[in-house]
Every structure is written in C-alpha cells, then in structure tokens.
C-alpha cells in the first residue's frame, strides 16, 4: 500500500487547475451495447457536481469508472492530474444500497475503509467514533445494520466514506433508498458538508429537484448513447438559506428547464 497518498495528491493539487476530476473522451461498451460514448466532463474542486439523467443513461457506469471499479473501453479519467487505473485513496464511494457488512457493528462498518488500509485498530476506531458522532449516530456504535432504519444505514455509509478522508466523494444515488423526509434532511446536511469539508463531491441522482437543490454544477446525461447534453451552473442558490432554496425563482426555473429537456426521453 502507498503510505503517502495524501502528500502526493496535495502536491498535485497545486499543479493542476480548478478541476479535481476530469473525464476525457470516455467510452464504455458492454459487448455490443454502448453504455457511454466519448464523454468528457470536468468536476471543479471543492464543489458538488450532479450527474442527472433518466435511468439507463450510464450515470452509475460513469461514476464507477471514476471510482476505478470499471475500466473504460476508451478514454481516461484523471484525478488531480493523475490517471485513474483502479480504486485509490483519493476517492471514497457512497453506495446506493449502502453496502454495509451485515455481520459487523456500526463501528466496524465505519472503520472498515481504514481497516482495509491497514490502520491500527485503536486509531481507526477513534476516527470512526468521531465520524459516527458527526453524522448523528452517537450511541449506535454497537448496533448492527439490520437494527437501523434505511436513513441511519446511509449515515453509516457516509461516515465510512468520510472516515478515510479522501478528497473526492463519489455518491451513487445515495438518498434514493430512504424515505422523503429523511431525504430532505440528508440534502440539507449534504449542503453543510459541501460548505464545511474541503472536498469534491460527485453526486449521481435521477431526481431533478434533488440535483438542483444540492448542486454547484449539474451535468445532464442523455441515453443511447450516453452523452453530456448540457451543463448547468446555478449561480445564486448557494447564498440562500437552505430552507429558502425551494422557493427561489432560479431554483424553479432550472427545474422547469431540465424537465423540458428530459421529458422527451421518458417512455
């Protein structure tokens, strides 16, 4: 294992410009099926970029290529100017279905990323406990995933991703499996996280409202073959109070505009 991943990425940071992650001409074929074709996109540092599109447009495929879980057929992905060849310490993944170990406690689940990096048990549990508190699960350290609600499980998944202190967080429809109220709370918390942590967020979603609410930049993906049809950057929403965003005219305009361009792709 690389023992100085963070130092190396930091030095690269200074060299490269605003994009933390850049995707250059990526194509992905599964046999005859073309999942992605020649897709290029930049993800600005310290901001949240949403990949928004109807199902089957390849947004999860793109995220997994960036994560290094899938290899692109063509093209390349760079994180901090370094080409991606596999999973790396600079990226952490939050899974749609949480991907928690059912046989492990919350504490071990949150510490699992550090465990795989060979961090000593006392150290990693101390870090994990801190992040468990941060996501609001203090007192549940000894619980098992099946004893938690869907929302709480995703907080565990989030804490696990935060605990490894990666610069880039890859979130694959993280809130789609939780109920509406929990989702709204999550979205507010996410805005706090983007503002507070100096991390780059890549956020896959199929909800237009969610994308507009949480994003600094929205990339709209269209299917067959997948391509970026439009990149929208809401300008005035970040300065608003979190509870006022949904009433903001810009918010409503962007939601309408995105729906207008997506509606023809809905069967």
């Amino acid at each position, binding site marked *: 294992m690389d023992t100085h991943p963070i130092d190396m990425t930091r030095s690269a940071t200074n060299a490269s410009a605003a994009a933390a992650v850049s995707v250059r001409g990526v194509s992905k074929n599964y046999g005859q099926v073309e999942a992605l074709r020649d897709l290029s996109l930049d993800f600005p540092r310290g901001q949240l970029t949403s990949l928004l599109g109807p199902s089957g447009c390849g947004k999860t495929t793109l995220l997994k290529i960036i994560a290094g879980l899938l290899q692109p057929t063509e093209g390349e992905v760079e994180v901090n100017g370094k080409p991606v060849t596999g999973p790396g310490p600079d*990226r952490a993944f939050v*899974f749609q279905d949480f991907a928690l170990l059912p046989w492990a406690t919350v504490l071990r689940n949150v510490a699992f990323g550090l465990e795989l990096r060979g961090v000593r048990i006392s150290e990693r549990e101390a870090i994990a406990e801190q992040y468990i508190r941060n996501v609001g699960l203090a007192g549940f350290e000894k619980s098992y995933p099946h004893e938690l*609600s869907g929302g709480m499980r995703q907080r565990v998944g989030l804490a696990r991703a935060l605990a490894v202190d990666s610069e880039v967080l890859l979130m694959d429809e993280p809130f789609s499996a939780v109920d509406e109220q929990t989702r709204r709370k999550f979205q507010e918390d996410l805005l706090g996280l983007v503002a507070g942590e100096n991390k780059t967020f890549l956020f896959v979603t199929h909800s237009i409202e969610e994308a507009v609410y949480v994003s600094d930049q929205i990339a709209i993906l269209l299917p067959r073959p997948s391509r970026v049809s439009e990149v929208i950057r809401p300008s005035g929403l970040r300065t608003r109070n979190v509870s006022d965003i949904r009433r903001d005219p810009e918010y409503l305009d962007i939601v309408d505009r995105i729906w207008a361009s997506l509606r023809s792709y809905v069967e």
Partner: protein
Amino acid sequence: MPMSRSLVLKLLSGVIVFGAWEVAGRIPVSYAFPTFFESMAALVDMTVSGWIFEAYVETLRPLIIGLLISAFIGIALGLWVGLSNWFDWLVSPIFIVMQAAPLAALIPLLVMVYGIGLTSKVFVVCIMAMPVIVLNTAGAVRNAPTNLKEMGYSFLGTEQDIILKVIIPSASPIIFAGLRLGTSAGFIGAILSELKITPTGIGDIITYSRSIADYPSMYAAIFSIMVLAVLFLNFLERTERYFFAGNVRGYASD
C-alpha cells in the same frame, strides 16, 4: 393463558400420533407392530442396561469422523470451486452428478475395496454428506453480494482482504446450512452402512431384535436414532439462527 396456542397444538399433535400408534399396536394391525408403550418400555430397559449407550458409541464413531472429514474437505473444496473459474469447471460437475445420483449404490463396491470395517462406514458417511457441503459453499462464495465486493475494492481492499473479510463472512450462513444438510445426509449414511455393511451399534440392535422377533426393542432403537438425529439437527438449526440472525435480515430493505 398459561400455555401458548402453538405449544398446546404441538402437544396435541404428539398425543394424536402416539395415541394412533398405541391403538394400532393394540388392535394389532400386524404381529410385528408393538404398541407405543411397549416400545417405550423397551427403550427404558435398553437405557437402564446401558446397551443403547454402547450402541451409540459404535454408531456415532463413523458418523462423527465422516462428518468432520466432509466438513473440512468439503468447505475447502467449495471455497476453491467458488473462487476459481477453472477449478469450478473441473470439479463442479462431479459434485452436481453426486448430488443427483443415488450414491448408496456405491456401498457394495466400497465394501469390496475397503472391507467391512470402520473405513467403509466413514466413506459412506462422506459420500453422502460431502456433495451438499461442497455445492452450498461454492454457491455461497460465487454469489457473494457484488455490492459488498465492490465496496471492498473501492476502499482499497486487496484480493485477500475481500475473500477473508467480505466473501467468507457473507457466505458463512449458507455454508453452515450446507453443513446441517450434510449432517442430515450423514445420518442416513451411517445408519445405512450399519444395516447394509455389518450390523454394529444401533444397526445391530435393529437387526438382532428383528431376528429374535423382539419388535418392541427394534422399534425403540429406531425411535431413538430418529429422535437423536432430529434433536441434533434442531440444535444445529438453532445455533445457525442464533449466529446468523442479523446477517440474514441485514439484506432486507425496510
């Protein structure tokens, strides 16, 4: 209510079945059909005289040796089959055929090769118990949840980390269930070998009592071995539920 409905019904169904046995024995439906109480009296006699304990020592020896061998080799083979494509291609068909085939037909051959001693009996237990252990283990390893494996890789787990910390723990409930099914098959094998190869242990009590027409003792021996098997398997199932309760429920969405 002092007793739960399900307990009352369980007792009731026991009374009905054993009562029917008693009545059928009293008619009698056959000269070779003793009553329930006669059989239980014979069981008590055997227990008091210690005969039945000597018999069980004899019967359980090949069973336990065979099950231990099947568990170790079976799980090892199953892990290998589940993790390696070429080994899967090479070995799986053998166990798939074994699973479907009436392996009891191998017994006369085993007796010719290994004689009528312990070796043959252990072999019978092994061929009965091993296929289900191997196939369950392999299937569980092969079908370990992709999302958990991806999670492991994305957090920089090595191949070995993923196998030890993700695949094997997630497969263990099904591996354990395979061991339980293997044990059930092993019991069949152990008794079959005692009835077919040489009468020892419980098989000896059954065969001997039959030959002197002591039917209550014969029924008592059969009753006791079936009770023993059921209790033991029940115990395994409870252990399983205790250990893997969370693991099984954990995949359910809420």
